[in-house]
């Protein structure tokens, strides 16, 4: 359906306005330019209000303003009823004309002071076919007509706010995207209507056949139980996949939030660890220092005397070298011999000459022998002291090394603590811990559901096998029973039809996903200004969208707002194109977040799209830059400017 025109009466800034979207060129492109506050977004809101009775795009502030035009309120008399009306005129591909009309009556209490009160509302849809026959639908029927032309569930794919495109992939989970693809591609119609109802019809037919024969009934009943079980498994699988997709999305969200932020909990655990280690090392260090002190006290004197000890040992060694040690003669023996005047060894008496020689010898050895004896006596203890000093050196070196090690460790711990403090300062620790906890929760959910999925899958395969066997058995039993021949034919027909639906659905699902993926990629890379940065666009099995960096990693979370907006727009356009869904595309502030130099790319794609799809763009004058203007002015079928009256209570629509 295309929008032919919109008529607005007393709706917000629009007291009385009509905007026609008749195609006048090869481009079904319509441009509306208005400053902020002139009611641009209210055009999008008016369409939503008319078709669905709500205004999801309005800001909180705007929503608080009365729906009734302020000027109309002022002009109204006390107690007077005023009607707000929005009409959306549409035309379908098979030349049906549809007029959606929503009216609300408000009563004015006191002009300009109190807010008006809503008295009544009505919604009507008028459909005129190509032969001129008109049908009017009201109440539930009218809502059903809206669903037929512009389903509410997927309106965000044809009427949307460009500024929110940046958030598109944050808000649209894989499940939502899957839902949109299913709705727009009509897989939903195939699956939830035709397949489901054919399946129920088949059950009805089998039940009827069962009434004719108890054997058939028994097999049918078993088959139905197994099919019910299969359905339950399928539901569980669906739920698991939903939880997995949700967990994946959430993990991605938290990863994005936590990018560059330390894992506070892990850091705090490490901080506590370091503090404990630091305490332990400090105790060991103190112990070693005490040991060192004791050692110094114990060996202090020996160490201080080490030099004289060494010198004494040297003297002894020199004396030994000279042969002075040990002494060669026994001094007391010689003294006794002089006294006895005879040799005490052989008994020969001394003559004067011998006596003199012995006395001379005695004089000679008297002192050195004493010293030598003393020295000999000292030698052992001196060596002991020397060994002790050497041992002291070894122990001291070992202790010093250990002390140094502990001191180094303590310095490292201190450095790490300073680093942790620097890393964590300025962060809201509690919030970050909560994020990590939440992320962990979704990680656990992801793993649990993946495991659960594996378990269900095995059981599902067994049930499928049972179902096939029971189907064969039922078929044989139906063949034997002549009374159910007619029913058997219907069962066979229904089964065949059901299989065709299932097969078609599977193929369409896979092809559609692939086509949307390919087309999104084409549009995205066709528009992209940084062509070398990205490598691929992927729509995964769970319908989540991923942008692949040229280095191979998923980077949707880290790309710029403009690039994300570009991808969202590419995906939306691909969805429209691949599905062949007959609807307009209306974007409020389409390039608000796109830098000037890239706006022209958007302008090009809108022109291209409008060659086979009605495209309505609502720009601010700043957005409608020179480049865009040059590109779109010549192509647009219609251009309008929104002008706010001097009292700011009414907007006029001027054709440019």
């Amino acid at each position: 359906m295309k929008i032919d025109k919109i008529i607005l009466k007393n709706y917000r800034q629009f007291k009385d306005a009509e905007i026609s979207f008749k195609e006048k060129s090869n481009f079904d492109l319509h441009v509306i330019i208005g400053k902020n506050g002139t009611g641009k977004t209210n055009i999008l809101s008016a369409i939503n209000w008319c078709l669905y009775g709500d205004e999801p795009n309005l800001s909180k502030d705007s929503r608080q303003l009365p729906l009734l035009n302020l000027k109309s309120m002022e002009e109204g008399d006390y107690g007077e009823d005023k009607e707000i009306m929005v009409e959306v005129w549409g035309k379908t591909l098979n030349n049906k004309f549809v007029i959606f009309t929503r009216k609300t009556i408000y009563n004015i209490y006191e002009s300009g002071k109190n807010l008006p009160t809503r008295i009544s509302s009505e919604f009507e849809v008028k459909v005129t076919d190509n032969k001129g026959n008109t049908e009017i639908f009201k109440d539930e029927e009218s809502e059903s007509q809206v669903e037929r032309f512009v389903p509410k569930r997927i309106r965000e794919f044809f009427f949307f706010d460009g500024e929110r495109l940046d958030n598109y992939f944050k808000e649209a989970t894989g499940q939502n995207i899957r839902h949109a693809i299913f709705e727009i591609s009509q897989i939903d119609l195939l699956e939830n209507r035709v397949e489901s109802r054919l399946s129920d019809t088949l059950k009805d037919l089998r039940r009827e056949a069962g009434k004719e024969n108890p054997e058939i009934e028994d097999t049918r009943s078993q088959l139905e139980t197994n099919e019910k079980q299969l359905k339950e498994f399928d539901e569980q699988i669906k739920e698991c996949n939903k939880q997995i997709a949700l967990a994946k999305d959430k993990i991605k969200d938290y990863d994005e939030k936590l990018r560059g932020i330390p894992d506070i909990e892990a850091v705090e655990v490490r901080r506590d660890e370091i503090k404990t280690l630091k305490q332990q090392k400090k105790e060991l260090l103190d112990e070693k220092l005490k040991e060192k002190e004791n050692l110094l006290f114990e060996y202090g004197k020996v160490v201080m005397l080490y030099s004289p000890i060494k010198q004494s040992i040297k003297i002894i060694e020199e004396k030994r070298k000279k042969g002075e040690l040990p002494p060669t003669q026994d001094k007391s023996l010689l003294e006794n011999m002089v006294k006895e005047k005879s040799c005490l060894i052989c008994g020969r008496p001394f003559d004067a000459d011998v006596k003199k020689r012995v006395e001379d010898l005695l004089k000679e050895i008297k002192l050195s022998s004493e010293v030598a004896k003393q020295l000999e006596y000292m030698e052992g203890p001196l060596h002991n002291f020397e060994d002790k000093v050497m041992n002291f050196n070894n122990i001291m070196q070992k202790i010093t090394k250990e002390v140094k090690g502990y001191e180094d460790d303590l310095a490292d711990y201190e450095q790490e603590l300073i680093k942790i403090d620097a890393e964590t300062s300025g962060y809201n620790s509690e919030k970050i811990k909560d994020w990590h906890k939440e992320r962990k929760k979704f990680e656990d959910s992801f793993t649990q559901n993946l495991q659960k999925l594996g378990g269900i899958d095995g059981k599902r395969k067994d049930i499928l096998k049972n179902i096939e066997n029971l189907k064969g058995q039922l078929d044989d039993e139906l063949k034997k029973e002549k009374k159910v021949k007619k029913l058997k034919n219907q069962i066979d027909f229904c089964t065949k039809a059901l299989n065709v639906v299932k097969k078609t659905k599977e193929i369409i699902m896979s092809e559609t996903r692939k086509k949307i993926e390919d087309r999104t990629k084409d549009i995205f890379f066709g528009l992209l200004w940084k062509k070398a940065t990205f490598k691929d666009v992927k729509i995964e099995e769970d319908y989540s969208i991923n942008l692949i960096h040229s280095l191979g990693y998923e980077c949707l979370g880290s790309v710029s707002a403009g690039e994300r907006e570009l991808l969202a727009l590419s995906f939306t356009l691909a969805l429209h194109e691949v599905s062949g869904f007959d609807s307009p595309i209306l974007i409020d502030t389409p390039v608000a977040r796109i830098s000037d130099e890239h706006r022209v790319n958007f302008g090009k794609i809108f022109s291209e799209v409008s060659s086979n799809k009605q495209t309505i763009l609502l720009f601010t004058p700043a957005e409608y830059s020179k480049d865009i203007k040059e590109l779109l002015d010549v192509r647009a079928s219609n251009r309008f400017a929104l002008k706010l009256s001097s009292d700011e209570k009414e907007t006029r629509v001027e054709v440019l």
Partner: protein
Amino acid sequence: MGDGKINEPILKGIIENSEKDEKISKFLIDLLYEEAEHPGGQWRWRENYRKKIEQYLYNEVLL
């Protein structure tokens, strides 16, 4: 959806997967249009499905 229109890929898919069984393909296309005509899903589908099975099965609808 979109004025009771059925997307081309679905129609093609039904025809191809019916493997030249026109009774089946036309029956399914008929059901699809019928469902698309009732976007709210509220219609007497149970008896209509049964009726259509008989009609297409016994050639009561011109193929």
